[in-house]
């Protein structure tokens, strides 16, 4: 059983705040190359990798995978920084423990991240060596229907993703 919140500041930053923080960074990185570089320069990748490996909350895992996908999109430098922080292994881990058939959102987001990380031959080799292809053909039908599997196997690239924060409205019945 993985801990959901292990930091010393876990009373202040819970999973809801953490997922929303990932969402905020994901939306900041979407369509803005300067923000991608800024986020990577702030040395967030090690924390992302750690959270992907240790957290189980699907909202957190999906948001982190989307952040990696947006950071790696159309930017060789940020993709290389993500790979140097072993993000592909973290994505593998998040799919294996937090994905599965119960959470297709995590699978889909991780596959998008894999697709965007593989934006040159060197990175494709790196991602392929991490076992992403094996995961891509084993994912649940919900994620297999998406175009992300085709992209990773064919070496395609996804567009930047927008991440909606989880806000419970008063009229929400669930």
């Amino acid at each position, binding site marked *: 059983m993985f801990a959901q919140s292990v930091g010393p500041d876990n009373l202040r930053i819970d999973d809801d705040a953490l997922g929303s923080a990932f969402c*905020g960074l994901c*939306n900041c990185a979407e369509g803005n190359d*300067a923000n991608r570089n800024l986020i990577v320069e*702030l040395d967030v990748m090690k924390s992302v990798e750690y959270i992907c490996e240790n957290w189980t909350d699907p909202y957190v895992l999906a948001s982190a995978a989307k952040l990696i996908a947006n950071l790696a999109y159309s930017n060789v430098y940020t993709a290389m920084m993500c790979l140097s922080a072993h993000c592909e292994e973290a994505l593998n881990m998040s799919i294996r423990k937090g994905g599965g058939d119960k959470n297709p959102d995590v699978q889909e987001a991780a596959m998008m991240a894999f697709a965007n990380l593989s934006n040159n031959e060197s990175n494709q080799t790196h991602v392929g060596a991490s076992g992403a292809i094996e995961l891509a053909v084993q994912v649940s039908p919900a994620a297999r229907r998406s175009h992300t599997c085709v992209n990773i196997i064919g070496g395609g690239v996804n567009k930047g993703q927008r991440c909606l924060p989880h806000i419970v*409205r*008063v009229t929400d019945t669930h």
Partner: protein
Amino acid sequence: MLTNPVLFSLFCSRVGGLTKHDLLIIAKLEPNTLPPRRPPGRPSSMPSHTSAAAKALHEEQQKSLNVTKNFVAPVKKLTIAEEVGKKLKRMQDKSPADFLDICLREFDVAVSLQTSAMRDEFDEALNDLTSRANSMERNLSSLMSWKQQTCEAKVKQALQQRDDERQEKLNLANWMSQFTPSSEANKDVDEVDFAFIRFALNMAVACDICPVQKQLDAGAPAFLASMLRVKSDSVVGPASMALAHLSLHTETKAAIAAAGGITACVDLVNTNPNAPIVAQCCKTLASVAMWPANKPLMAGKGAIKALVRAIQVSSLTP
């Protein structure tokens, strides 16, 4: 007896209810075509002289028609009593015993015909009544089924409404319980703070109900952003939640940034010790960042740095 007016009038009064149609049936009646049901205690055979009389009457009519060939008078409908009366008048020369016998037979036939006609009418009326009752029963059953369906739909709608309201109350209770002040925060909530709390909760509820333009015209983003700078967490919590709800609308993202919402949220993410408040501020920042013009602004206001810091802090190993 034939000439006895008392007996004749008595007979005529007993068969007076028969119509001309019945009389014509009597005139053309053959012994084989008598009605199946007859009054008890009376012979079921038709007297032969009745058909003879009918034939004679018919011949007489034919003759009269031949005579008055050029003029066709309107046919007067005779009742059975009149027809029988005519017939008996022609037989006045019979002996009293024969005449009485003829009278009795004619009376039996007339009564039988009248009974049969009445039975037919009754059967017809009964069939009509039955069909009407069936139709009414069908209408009633369809009406009842429609009523039942309507009631079921109303019950379902009421249950759904009850569940929605219950969930709404539960959400409100969760909201209120989320923003209890921490030990470091100020626990004193005065009347003004309570009014601000209610206002912020109402704004959070109203963001889906009230038109967006109306909220923008009222200056809701600026007011809620200014509420984030209050020292009491009891006020800041509902205000941050209301701002997060308000930021879901596309039209409000730029307005929140212009009203200083990003800066206020960044300060809270960096310093506030209350986790729900930090979460609501992160949601507001995430929602505001979806607006393209706000992306450089987020970097300039330190929002990216604050979010990265929050991620780094939560992932630090103890």
